[in-house]
């Protein structure tokens, strides 16, 4: 139990350190016009703000995350054994991700699921960028304000329908008894229905469909602020259309592109609905592995370890891409 408790003090130590630093600096360069926090906000509001913000950042974000990470370094135990002599720190959960449970060779199933999820998410991100970029460019640079507002509304309305029903609607199209197969068989194009869900077409379409909006808005926002004269100038100087995009629009919209791609990638890698309802029977998505540890094996420690592996890998990959394209994280989240 002790390691679990110790970690809970980490955020408070960090806060105390910053507070002491702030005190020290305030004393160093004394500024008589400076007003203290409670002086500025009043006692009641000041306390209310601090209460709300610490409830959120500490008890809903920082502490649960830290606690989950600590849990992942513990062995799989029955509830009664928690806090007992067997409850020690261990790397066993992480080892089990790499080593097969027979003790020999690699854990091919889980590593395979992990790599497949990451690669498929990258593919979906690229696909969505290709689909959304032209529309975002059109809305940002050539549409009239009224038309753009209508297009926006048309984009948002389908997203009021939840993820599950959207996956369901794609299943009605792509299933072996679905509309596309029915029409193609009736028209005589094919004799036997094509198994779109079995060969993962459904999964890719579902993921791309689910996160179109997440890609298009950052792109639109970034391209919208580009001065039209820059494009005009490039055109007057004789640049072909693809060079205008490559050398003018895309470099300018880089933060928006990075933000859209990051969001789509993170959401697809962490998605649960599309793989569950549109993936083929042999397809194993990494979040489904985590889901099964929680709901079928009740192995929370191992589920936590896998969740942490997913989070760490996603963050590492996003950081790598941002470094590669020379964008800071602050620019991305706006």
């Amino acid at each position, binding site marked *: 139990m002790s390691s679990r408790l110790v970690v809970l003090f980490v955020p408070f130590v960090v806060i105390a350190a910053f507070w002491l630093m702030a005190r020290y600096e305030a004393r160093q360069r004394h500024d008589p016009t400076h007003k203290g926090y409670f002086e500025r906000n*009043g006692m009641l509001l000041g306390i209310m*703000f601090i209460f709300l*913000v610490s409830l959120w950042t500490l*008890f809903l974000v920082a502490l649960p995350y830290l606690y989950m990470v600590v849990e992942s370094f513990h062995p799989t135990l029955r509830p009664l054994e928690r806090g007992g002599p067997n409850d020690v720190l261990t790397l066993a959960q992480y080892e089990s991700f790499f080593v097969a449970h027979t003790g020999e060779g690699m854990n091919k199933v889980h590593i395979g699921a992990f790599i497949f999820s990451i690669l498929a998410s990258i593919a979906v991100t690229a696909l969505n960028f290709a689909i959304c970029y032209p529309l975002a460019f059109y809305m940002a640079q050539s549409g009239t304000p009224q038309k753009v507002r209508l297009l926006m509304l048309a984009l948002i309305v389908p997203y*009021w329908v939840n993820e*599950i029903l959207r996956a369901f609607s794609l299943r009605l199209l792509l299933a072996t008894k679905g509309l596309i197969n029915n029409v193609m068989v009736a028209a005589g194009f094919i004799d036997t229905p094509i198994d779109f869900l079995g060969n993962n077409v459904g999964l890719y379409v579902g993921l791309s469909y689910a996160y179109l909006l997440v890609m298009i808005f950052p792109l639109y926002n970034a391209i919208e602020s580009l001065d039209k004269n820059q494009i005009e100038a490039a055109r007057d100087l004789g640049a072909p259309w693809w060079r205008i995009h490559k050398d003018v629009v895309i470099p300018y919209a880089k933060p928006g592109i990075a933000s859209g791609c990051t969001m789509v990638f993170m*959401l697809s890698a962490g*998605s649960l609905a599309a793989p569950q*309802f549109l993936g083929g029977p042999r397809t194993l998505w990494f*979040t489904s592995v985590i889901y099964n540890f929680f709901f079928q094996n009740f192995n929370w420690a191992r589920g936590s370890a896998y969740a942490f592996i997913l989070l760490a890998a996603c963050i590492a990959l996003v950081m790598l891409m941002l470094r590669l394209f020379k964008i800071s994280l602050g620019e991305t989240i706006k």
Partner: protein
Amino acid sequence: MKSAWVMRGMIGFYIFLFFAYLFGPLIVMSITAFNTPNYPQAYPFESFTLNWFVKLWNDRAMMEGLRNSIIIGLGVVAVSVPAGLAAAIIMSQIYHRARGLFYLVTISPLLTPGVIIGISTVIFWKDVLSITDVTKAVFYKGIILAILGQSSFVSAYCLLIFMARLTRFDRAQEEAALDLGASYPQVFWHILLPFLKPAVVSAIVIGFLSSFENYNTTTFAILADKTLVTVLAGQVRQGTTPALSALAVIIISISLVGAITYEVIKRREQARADLAQRRAKIAERAEVEASALPATSSA
């Protein structure tokens, strides 16, 4: 000239394809809600029926899920909107060296997969609430955990909405009020909050909708309870029934009505603003002419 025409045609065709992709599946699903076969099919269309809506209405699990979803949505809004607002204000006042870390912590739920938020919420709160039997019996419930889990990222949405609005706040207003003797709390209640009202409204709407639609976090945090979305997920997993399409038809209709109302209101506002401007111009011109008239007569 001809190439421009071709270009425009291609753009039009592309936009058509894009929206066909966006709306196609929803339209097909809506058709299946009115078709008789047990398996939701749009083609061939056998005969028209409203039975699936009746079936939906009689689905007790779905109705219970709907009720829970609304309760959770209201709870999430009640936690997240104040928390996002408080964080947005603290963001501008916090010790400058801590600001980066504070921003990272508040935004991190948006970058964390929802699955992980759900898991960490359950693991943490289970142990915290298990300290006494009473707290466990009273608070360790799916609805409460779902509110806690969802609030962590909905608050972040709210924070972004408030920060965007606050950047347009004119500090001169605050200074004027302070010079006239208002206290800081008075400035907050009478100047800042009214200024933020549109942001509060959109934070409430977006917060409620994203709570209502959430699946990844909720499926873990909800424990033995159910929300509309988790009931739906269970039904899709078991098989498919046109009753689900019927539900989709209802949701799409509500969205469409909402969207059209929004558009109408926006257009009316625009028209009213235009009219007011035109009237002001006419009045101004009349005034200028009136004041110029005696001047010319005296000269």
